[in-house]
């Protein structure tokens, strides 16, 4: 394992919003090639954690290093080449074509005076292809459905092409086919191109199928993490969600069924 690059390391991390402390004492190591799924009930701090890990929120306590360098000391543009974040809600106040929105993902790679060139457009089109949006390249994003808009956001993150990808509920609005398409692509990026992926997700079955590692947040500061197979068990998940969850085996797959 020592040969695999450690991309993100948190020690004693405390995360909060307003007066609430949501997560405390989190130690986390994310290596290249890993796909982490963050699970937990509503309001357990998944979004706040992701934004903190992305360096967009100050730490309440602890340390956070991206590639061995304190996250706060990265200049914003350099940071944007090393980690990307897909926010949960995407806001469009004005029209723009899907391609133009995905091209924005190239922003950190361009100098102040540079314009996107053919190479950037090639990357953007490939990203749109990866999320099965070839047919909607020229469509106005304000006319897309929620799931289609979500995939445009994912494509923009793919075009940004950072070593560490953080995604806040990337498959929440997607239909079944595209949930699997997107997660497959992310797994491929982790396996074949050494990316590290950390995403929050509510679908336990998809998480069990695609995650290499799991981080489960629960009430009263409960934290469980480790390889997905061993971490995602009935006891941990039932406690985290405050709801009985059973684990079954269907063919070669593990499925979770809520009581």
């Amino acid at each position, binding site marked *: 394992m020592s040969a695999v690059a450690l991309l993100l390391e948190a020690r004693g991390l405390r995360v909060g*919003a307003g007066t609430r402390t949501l997560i405390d004492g989190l130690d986390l190591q994310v290596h290249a090639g890993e796909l982490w799924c963050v699970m937990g009930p509503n309001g357990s701090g998944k*979004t*706040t954690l992701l*934004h903190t890990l*992305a360096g*967009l*929120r100050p730490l309440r306590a602890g340390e956070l290093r991206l590639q061995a360098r304190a996250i706060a000391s990265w200049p*914003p*543009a*350099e*940071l*944007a*080449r090393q980690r*990307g*974040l897909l*926010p949960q*809600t*995407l*806001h*469009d*106040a*004005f*029209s*723009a*074509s899907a391609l*133009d*929105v995905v091209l*924005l*993902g190239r*922003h*950190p790679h*361009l100098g*102040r*005076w540079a*314009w996107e060139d053919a190479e950037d457009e090639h990357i953007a089109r490939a990203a749109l292809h990866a999320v099965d949006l070839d047919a909607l390249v020229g469509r*106005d994003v304000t*006319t897309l459905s929620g799931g289609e808009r979500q995939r445009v*956001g994912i494509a*923009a993150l793919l075009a*940004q092409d950072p070593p560490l990808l953080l995604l806040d509920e990337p498959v929440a609005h997607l239909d079944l086919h595209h949930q699997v398409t997107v997660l497959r692509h992310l797994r491929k990026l982790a396996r074949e191109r050494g990316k590290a992926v950390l995403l929050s997700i509510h679908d336990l079955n998809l998480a069990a199928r695609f995650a290499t590692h799991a981080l489960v947040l629960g009430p009263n500061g409960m934290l469980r993490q480790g390889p997905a197979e061993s971490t995602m068990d009935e006891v941990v998940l039932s406690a985290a969600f405050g709801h009985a969850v059973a684990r079954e085996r269907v063919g070669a797959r593990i499925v979770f069924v809520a009581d």
Partner: protein
Amino acid sequence: MARALRLWLLLAGLSLAALLLALAVGSSTIAPQDVARLLWQPDASSDSEVLQRLRLPRALAAFGTGGLLALAGALMQVLLRNPLADPYVLGVSGGAAVGALLALLFAGSVLLVQAGAFGGALLSIVLVFALAQRDLSRVDTTARLDSAPRLLLTGVMLAALWSALITLLLMLAPEARLRGMLFWLAGDLGGSDAGGWPLLALAALAALSWPLARELNVLLRGAAMAQALGVRVVRVRRIVYVLASLASAIAVTTGGAIGFIGLVVPHALRLVIGNDQRVLLPACALGGGTLLLLADTLARSVVAPQQLPVGVITALLGVPSFIALLLRRGGTR
């Protein structure tokens, strides 16, 4: 990039044509070839006098003011992420109007009115900036509400206050001064002696905002996305606020509260050329200038020697054509 250049050249050509028209038309018509000759070699004729002393400074002021308004409108729309924003939405024109009306009430020299207008506009800018610090200096990327409601609300509230003060001043004003005050409020370039200064300001502010244009594109997709892509959101927002406010302040000082240009020119251009701020901002500067120049030419020639306030013309011509553009584009979507 090549497409942008072609577009700017086209708009620049239109600007020159509009300028030629503005210089030729008026209470006396000057032939186009004479316009060109008299511009380079003034002589003692009355045409030369009219051209050099009256029409040229006014045409330059009109172009500069129109460009500033359209630029300010485009920037405000990005800053507030609100398509309804115009240069005056945060109260700049109200502050300027109160300053200008006070000057008209007590003194009335052109210089004092302009000083009053600019002072009032600056006061308004500083007030909004100070009151909306929380919105301008902080970004919460996890917030579900992404626009800048506090900034907008602060501006709108201040505008309401200014508008009450304007009514009060109009009530208190003696009959003899009322007409001048109403003209100022409607937007009028007749009293301006600014000449080329607004144009210079336009060039400077457009040049300062253009390097930020791609960051503005990113900002249009929300603060979270912008921050994640390495845009220094707080800094960019502050700079845009200052640039847009200054542009509005200079425009309103030159021509009074001319409506419509700042709201509609950016939208009309967006519908036609798309929403890349790198292309749009210079296009707004040229397009806004051209439109106001044409409107002002109409305002001073349609019932010559009488003059109409240019703000009335911009609204009368602009509203129907913009609605037509909206309907036409709406049908193709």
